[in-house]
């Protein structure tokens, strides 16, 4: 912890205790992201464990919720840490996370602004931004891009995700093979054992959903609900596939 002005707070994670939507701040319910079914009723999400995992089909709003929380935490909705602006938003029509965050309210103990918002889709931009920032400062950059995607991801997680903070991961598995996902599970274990890291993660990877001690939430059109790994569509599909890969694929392609 050699950075100036950074002190570890002697309270265990989770630091973000609750996030909810303030209806008075929603101008138009028909507009995205407020038209998502998850926001139709009261949206209220409580964090009781250091690690929370959100699963759900594409389009249900997982990433949007993470973006909203990330902006509340002080991160850019494109990814990065506090104060990072890795992506030029000048051409963007709208920023979903930013819009949502204006209508979200949060309860913290204490308010933590360190950590990281990791999005697979912007990792390249963030990594390049880090290299350029280091070059401008006359120091050697972290150079996460001189590796395969998976190795770059893992090295990034190892180097950036073990200090006190709130870490938001949007589909971290996207470049990770099953073996690398095991490495990622080990990192989650180290983060949990440190007691100073809060993780909120959206994933499609059953292996990551299986992390013990995490709160697993399933996002459906009906809202967020606690789930068990074996009940998730992701696990059921993977199980069916593993039982009979050829039969599974044949049947899936016949259904088309």
């Amino acid at each position, binding site marked *: 912890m050699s950075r100036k002005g950074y002190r570890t707070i002697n309270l265990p994670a989770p630091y973000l205790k609750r996030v909810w939507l303030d209806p008075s701040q929603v101008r138009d319910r028909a507009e995205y992201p407020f038209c998502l079914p998850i926001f139709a009723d009261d949206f209220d999400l409580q964090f009781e464990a250091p690690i929370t995992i959100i699963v759900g089909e594409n389009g249900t709003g997982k990433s949007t919720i993470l973006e909203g929380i990330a902006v509340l935490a002080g991160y850019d909705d494109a990814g990065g840490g506090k104060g990072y602006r890795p992506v030029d938003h000048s051409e963007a029509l709208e920023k979903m996370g930013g819009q949502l965050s204006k209508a979200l309210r949060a309860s913290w103990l204490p308010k933590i602004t360190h950590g990281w918002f990791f999005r697979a889709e912007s990792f390249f931009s963030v990594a390049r931004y880090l290299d350029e920032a280091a070059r401008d400062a006359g120091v050697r950059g972290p150079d996460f891009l*001189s*590796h*395969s995607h998976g190795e770059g991801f893992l090295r990034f997680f190892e180097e950036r995700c073990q200090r006190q903070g709130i870490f938001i991961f949007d589909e971290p598995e996207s470049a990770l*093979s*099953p*073996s690398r996902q*095991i490495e990622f*599970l*080990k990192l989650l*274990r180290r983060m949990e054992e440190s007691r100073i890291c809060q993780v909120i993660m959206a994933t499609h990877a*059953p*292996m990551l959903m*299986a*992390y*013990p001690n995490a709160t697993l939430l399933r996002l459906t059109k009906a809202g967020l609900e606690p789930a068990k*790994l*074996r009940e998730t569509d992701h*696990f059921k599909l*993977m*199980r069916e*596939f*593993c*039982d009979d*890969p050829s039969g599974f694929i044949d049947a899936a392609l016949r259904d088309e």
Partner: protein
Amino acid sequence: MGRTRRRQTTLSAPYLRRVRLDRTLVEDWEAYPFCLRVQGRVRSQLRVRCDHAGVMREFCDDPRGFVEATLGE
């Protein structure tokens, strides 16, 4: 659309038939990606496939046990 001179060929895929490394153009075998130990097309593909399928099957049989054993290592 408005483009001209785009004709569909009547030949069937695959169109890319072969990719190979020209060893004379590799300046530094220690640098990435040339340092990667790809030992041959067939063997490398088989190894990757077996590795992934094995891990996934083990996991599906007993997710909790698999993860606990993994984290206990």
